């Protein structure tokens, strides 16, 4: 089973209005070639789930600045002035979720768990509109799982079966979003034959991956 496609092969999979999870932390570990593709396709009304909106000229930040995005669900927008501007103008909705809560919501969505029971946000405006629960004498929020139509994953190395290895701090959200989307697309810096990645360092097994594209970054 060979999952390798080129960027042209990815185009039909990306559509207006989709919810997309995108890996990366301030752009480190974001599949920039897939970002290019979204801009080239002039996609509209996207909902983007990721850690942050990065910088204006990098990763998710480029999609925000380019006007592809209807809504973001992230933990931080402070490094991208376009995000604040669009939020204030009312042209882009922003849901802020604490980073640890956000990653657990994605993990829950990908792991069949019905929600996340976290102390983070109790007593703050983050708790507004959410279920609270008292367990073993402590108050917690119940935060709801997140899933997406598509996950755009950056891998340092992927094999033709889709197994992924993430080097350094590129791991961040990538192995978690690969659990939580209907279609998982990997942009890999290096592509190798199945079996060439040590099975001990694979964080995303290929069974989770639908397509692998060789990155041009």
């Amino acid at each position: 089973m060979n999952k390798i496609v080129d960027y042209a092969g990815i185009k039909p999979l990306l559509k207006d209005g989709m919810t997309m999870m995108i890996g990366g932390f301030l752009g480190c570990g974001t599949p920039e070639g897939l970002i290019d593709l979204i801009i080239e396709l002039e996609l509209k009304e996207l909902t983007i789930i990721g850690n942050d909106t990065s910088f204006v000229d990098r990763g998710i930040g480029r999609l925000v600045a380019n006007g592809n995005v209807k809504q973001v669900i992230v933990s931080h927008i402070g490094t991208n002035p376009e995000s604040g501007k669009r939020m204030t103008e009312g042209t882009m909705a922003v849901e802020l979720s604490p980073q640890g809560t956000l990653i657990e919501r994605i993990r829950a969505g990908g792991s069949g768990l019905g929600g996340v029971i976290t102390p983070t946000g109790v007593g703050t405006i983050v708790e507004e509109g959410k279920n609270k629960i008292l367990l073993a004498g402590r108050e917690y929020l119940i935060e709801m799982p997140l899933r997406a139509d598509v996950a755009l994953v950056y891998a340092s190395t992927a094999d033709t079966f889709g197994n992924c290895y993430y080097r350094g701090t590129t791991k961040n959200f990538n192995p978690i979003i690969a659990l939580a989307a209907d279609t998982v697309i990997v942009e890999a810096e290096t592509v190798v034959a199945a079996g060439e990645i040590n099975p001990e360092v694979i964080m995303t097994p290929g069974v989770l991956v639908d397509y692998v594209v060789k990155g041009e970054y």
Partner: protein
Amino acid sequence: MAVDANRAKEIIAKRIAMELKDGQLVNLGIGLPTLVANYIPDGVNVVLQSENGMVGMGPTPEEGKEDKYITNAGGQLVTIQPIGAFFDTAMSFSLIRGGHVDVTVLGALEVDQEGNLSNWIIPGKLVPGMGGAMDLVTGAKKVIVAMQHTAKGELKIKKRCELPLTAKGQVDMIVSELGVMAVTAEGLVLKEIHRDTTVEEVISLTEAELIIDDNIKVMEI
């Protein structure tokens, strides 16, 4: 006591560095808290966490030795120490929320005598988002606020925070250039003051009700 911002930050960072103990896992926020790393005493080896996915974070790489895939939570290039490890964000916040981080040092817009902290939003003006701060303040064993005592004449150590909170009642210690305050069940206790200030001056620059420690000391920096 009037010092410029750089000197104030140095005082704060030096004093907080003295709180760190050998072997502790420490998370330093962006900005002033990051400076703490420069003053850690000899013989004290702490492990720095970067919440994007690393423990054992080392300093900025030498020129020519940068690796674009080793970055900190501020997006800057860093290095990893021999004792370090990389992992994903879920593991990173298992460490944070799970109480495995011994000390977190964060900045503040406001902090109050009940240990409440506001540092992530000024509604209608500045909405950067909380990033990992809410989890850090909720989960770390010891939360130290690193802040200049006042900002442009505004008193930032409050009776009660007016800005939206980062977390409720989680702050353990506040270190400013004027002194060291501990949040206790009785209230906010002034434990130390800088040698160039007076208790009266600290009180006058603090909105919160300060309990003066019977054994109040001069900051050893």
